[in-house]
């Protein structure tokens, strides 16, 4: 009985929108014009279908989607581990009893509070601009200026760096987990002659793996939902190198008014996220260690 309110909320605000989105993705759906024509899986065929051209090369019906999948996966698969590594590394250091440690904890958390807003995007554009501080520092080492936001190769990395910079909340969760590791385990390991590195890999890391799993899924989802940075800093380019799926879906729904098609892409995104999350959960039995 006590779970009924939760079930109602779940059904109304989670399950229903997903089902409604799937149903509407089977239509040529245009709520503004009031048109809704059933077209079966045509929207999906437009996304995943293709044919061989005169030269025998495979050509997607809608290559833009696959460009976006590529851009999104690049961002997610490089950005997620980077955030986790950064967050864990800083949390590990901040777990030591250092002078002024609280100040550092706050300082590292601030970028997370700022989030991916417009002001941050502008600052980031300037930091990585042609004559920005990043290039100024690189020039000291004789590196020619790099176009961080206008070069097809570097633009995704600029956004990944921005994401990594905002590791504060992930770091705090790691820090809480680290503080829960019993000091007696380290004392016992020291008595047995284990060095700090061995303690890190044999005690600390295994004991925080449940939190690592939680953070991995969370950061993964956050990266799939990234919108502002690519929209404002790299303007989705160059040549769609940072044209993430959520922006493409937004464009087709609210700019091109192709709601049914946008919903089909949303379903594809849900599938991709679901698959990756499933992989993380299935593999977790090999690397996540619960204390019981």
């Amino acid at each position, binding site marked *: 009985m006590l779970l009924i309110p939760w079930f109602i909320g779940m059904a109304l605000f989670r399950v229903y929108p997903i089902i409604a989105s799937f149903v509407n993705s089977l239509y040529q759906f245009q709520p503004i014009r009031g048109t809704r024509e059933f077209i079966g899986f045509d929207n999906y065929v437009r996304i995943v279908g293709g044919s061989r051209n005169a030269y025998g090369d495979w050509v997607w019906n809608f290559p833009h989607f696959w460009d976006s999948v590529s851009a999104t996966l690049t961002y997610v698969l490089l950005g997620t581990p980077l955030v986790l590594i950064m967050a864990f590394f800083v949390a590990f250091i901040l777990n030591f009893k250092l002078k002024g440690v609280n100040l550092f904890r706050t300082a590292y958390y601030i970028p997370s509070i700022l989030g991916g807003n417009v002001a941050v995007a502008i600052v980031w554009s300037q930091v990585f601009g042609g004559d920005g501080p990043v290039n100024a520092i690189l020039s000291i080492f004789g590196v020619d200026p790099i176009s961080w*936001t*206008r070069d097809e190769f570097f633009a995704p990395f600029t956004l990944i760096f921005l994401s990594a910079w905002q590791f504060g909340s992930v770091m705090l969760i790691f820090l809480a987990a680290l503080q829960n590791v019993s000091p007696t385990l380290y004392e016992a390991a020291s008595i047995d002659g284990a060095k700090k590195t061995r303690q890190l890999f044999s005690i600390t890391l295994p004991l925080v793996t449940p939190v690592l799993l939680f953070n991995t899924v969370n950061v993964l989802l956050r990266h799939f939902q990234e919108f502002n940075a690519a929209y404002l800093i790299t303007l989705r380019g160059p040549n769609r190198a940072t044209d993430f799926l959520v922006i493409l879906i937004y464009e087709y729904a609210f700019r091109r008014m192709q709601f049914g098609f946008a919903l089909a892409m949303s379903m594809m995104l849900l599938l991709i996220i679901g698959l990756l999350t499933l992989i993380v959960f299935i593999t977790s039995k090999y690397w996540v260690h619960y204390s019981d």
Partner: protein
Amino acid sequence: MKKMLLAVCLAAIAMFVITACGGNDATPAGGAATPAPATPAPTPAPVETPPPVAEDWQLNDGNPATITFEWWGGDARHAAINDAIAIFTDRYPHITVNPIYGAFGGYLDRLTMDLAAGTEADVLQSNFAWVHALGDGYNVFANHNTLPYLDLTEWSDDLRAFTTTRDGELSGVPHGITGRVVIYNTEMFPNGFPATWDELIEVGAEIAANNTAVDGGNNRYAFFPVGYQSWDIILMTMILNEYGVNLQGGGQILPSVDQVEAAFEVMGRAIEAGALPTFVQQEAPLDTTNPVWMQGRAGGLFEWVGNIFLAAGNFGDNDPGARQVEGVGVALLPTMTAGTTANSMQRPSLVHAVTQGAVNRGVDHIAAYFLNFLYTDPDALLAIGDQFGVPLARSAAATADAEGQVWGLMADGLDLLVANTGDMCHLFEDPNLRPARAAAIEAFRTGGATAREAAERWVAEQQSYLNAMN
């Protein structure tokens, strides 16, 4: 001069509308022009005798009612319109007008959501392209031909043709016209902006002779178009001026691959010579606060007439928004062939429309009365001032003229614009066609496509969207 300007505006609009999307009257250069299949301009319905103005108590039979008015703009526009609303509600105290306003960013998203949910405002400000993209025959906007109280004699037939959609429905009323013109640095171009691309490339190469930074640095450029819309309009204007063909007609993309390729090649030569920036050199911020322009390192920008003061004011030691600007001139785009008519692509600057939602809610007559009030009431016109730009509706234009609102660089820009009329096809800013062109131009500028490949993409991708639309 100002009266003459407004008269020329109206005459130019007439020419503009007559040519519609199909082609223009520009003399094709070098005999290479392909005659453009003409697409008939929408024919506005004839205007009947102006409706009577309601006495204060008559509006809605004296019963209380509420309407909403949504617009975008800056603080000055918000204040001016709120003043006009206050005048209206003082005069008709039983009517409440709820204002909804904000910045342009996000406006279309909110509008789309509201339209989908049926909660759109009763009267709203719209872009020209949205009237066609959102409402063309789909009951998003009311048919203004049949609205009571709206005095359509305020707008000429030609002006109304802009917002006439399928089946002769009038989906809104345009406020004025706008287009992009070159504003140039007179120190860099003391004899005026080059008239042809060849001249610009030649001068641009000299200006760029000391450009050493591949990423921009302190380089100087003869011409620095900001934002992909500028590059898009530049390419289309080149095609329009050189070959006399516009974007589309009869569901077909009119420029041939060869014609688009030729325009891309000229653009490529200008980039190669340093007259135009490369893609990498043109970093954000992509607006008129770009330091390249502000610091006097750009020979020119390509800006909307309505933005002239903002753009020119950001130049050198001028004050942003200043009308009296030192060191800045106004010109048209260069042409590909000497002696060819240089046209500029124009479209309505703003559209105001009563929505179908107002009809459904039974307040369309009040919404229409309010819209008419904004365009005809002397007090409202004075309150609004030039906050919507230069008006072309009869009463609003007369007030702007009497109040001396059109002068300085903006007047110069409008003079140029209306004297060199081109036409922006109503599908030019369509949300499906424009990204296709932008992607082709970006691919070319980043070296991802040759002029030929970019031209093929420019034509083919737009054509596929047109096919899907039809």
